[in-house]
């Protein structure tokens, strides 16, 4: 047998692979086609519908999740690429009904309206603040450049991030 045989146990006639993931700190095993999109696996197979789907080509950020701590578009990630990774979705950001401070800031500053871009936006902000606790205007624009919002005009989102920045700079 070719040592470069196809991924995992996939053989010529079996189109599915065993995908081993850690999602929001829980081990998850699913059987899917290796080219299935991560966004479909999350939404359809695992019913983790907090991750949204909008453009399907990585241009809007509605499906943003973290893979091994990095922000990625779940619509651009194929199943085999996610194998053996640790994924955080919006469902993993707030635990036991306790909102993340970022979520509270979105709530109180009007950082959402229809809410459909919000999970992805929150993920992007979370990654930003982990890397840069007190971001500048340029940092915010860069970090959120892949997340589109049609309702707010970004005003409330910017205010939410700035509030977090202010809180973080006080802590320091």
């Amino acid at each position, binding site marked *: 047998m*070719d040592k470069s045989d*196809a991924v995992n146990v996939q053989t010529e006639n079996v189109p599915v692979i065993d995908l081993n993931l850690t999602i929001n700190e829980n081990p998850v095993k699913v059987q899917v086609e290796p080219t299935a999109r991560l966004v479909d696996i999350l939404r359809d197979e695992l019913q983790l519908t907090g991750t949204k789907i909008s453009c399907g*080509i*990585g241009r809007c950020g509605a499906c943003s999740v973290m893979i091994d701590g990095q*922000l990625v578009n779940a*619509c*651009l990630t194929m199943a085999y690429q996610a194998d053996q990774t640790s994924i955080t979705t919006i469902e993993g950001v707030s635990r036991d009904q306790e909102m993340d401070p970022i979520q509270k800031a979105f709530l109180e500053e009007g950082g959402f309206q229809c809410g459909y871009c919000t999970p992805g936006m929150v993920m992007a902000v979370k990654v930003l603040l982990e890397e840069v606790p007190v971001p500048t205007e340029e940092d915010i*624009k*860069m970090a959120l450049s892949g997340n589109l919002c049609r309702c707010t005009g970004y005003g409330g989102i910017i205010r939410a991030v700035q509030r977090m920045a202010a809180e973080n700079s006080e802590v320091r």
Partner: protein
Amino acid sequence: MVNEHEPLMSGKPPTLPVPTKIWRPSDLSEAWELKRRYGSEACYITGGTLIQLQREQGTPLAEHLISLDKINVLEGFDQLEDEGQFKLRIGALTTLSDCHRNVFIEEYWPILAEAIRHVASPAVRNRATIGGNVCYQVGDVIPALMVLEAEAVSFDGTTYLRNDIATYIQSVNGKDHPILTSITLPEPPVSAQVLSFFKKVGRREAFIPSIVTVACYTCINESGEVEYIRLAAGGGTASPKRLYESERFLQKKVLVEEDLGRLYDLVLQEYVPASDPFTTAEYRKTVAANVIVSEFEKLIQ
């Protein structure tokens, strides 16, 4: 009369298309062999961000996807010393984010960092690779790599080839093109004054295909004379190219205001972009010429 689709005549029950098979070879020879074996039914994949875009647009996935992500030698950075010159080798599978974060790139090749900053979004840059951007043939990093005299190292099944970026990009069009394995950046020349820039103009501020990209690396000696110049432009569906005529015009020159008009004309002449439904070639030319000339104007005191 047009048949969008031939009605069923065979009598055989229809089936779903054959699912795509993913191969994850662990070294380059195997990758090469797989591609030879499956030919046009196979396609290399790294980050896959472009393939996913094309899939959503209606292009079916290839029957065989040969993922290069398990070939460890293709990822990461190596600092090399070659005849006393400092070089940085970037594995073709290194993500654009990792390139952007690299301290050497930031210090020695800032226009590459600038070019990367303008590619897509942070989330896409976390998946997309520098090799993928080069093989895309119209990627925004290409003009920057061109003016930095970057070298493309590729594997043709038996040997490693070393080419300049333009030559490698040309080869991507051919069947069985060599696999890009790394990009080597030589330390750029130094002089009394350096003018280097990367500019991208798009229809939106960020996450946007380019209308025009220009990159330049120019050394000016103590007497104000241009002694080294590399200038390249791309944008839209046009493959980025060096602007040799403009380079020749500027070489050995101490720039005066009267030269700007001539430079403007030269760029207009030799930069050949394409039109699309949103932007005309004429506009792209004017923008490229304006942006380049405005930068060189800074040399005139």
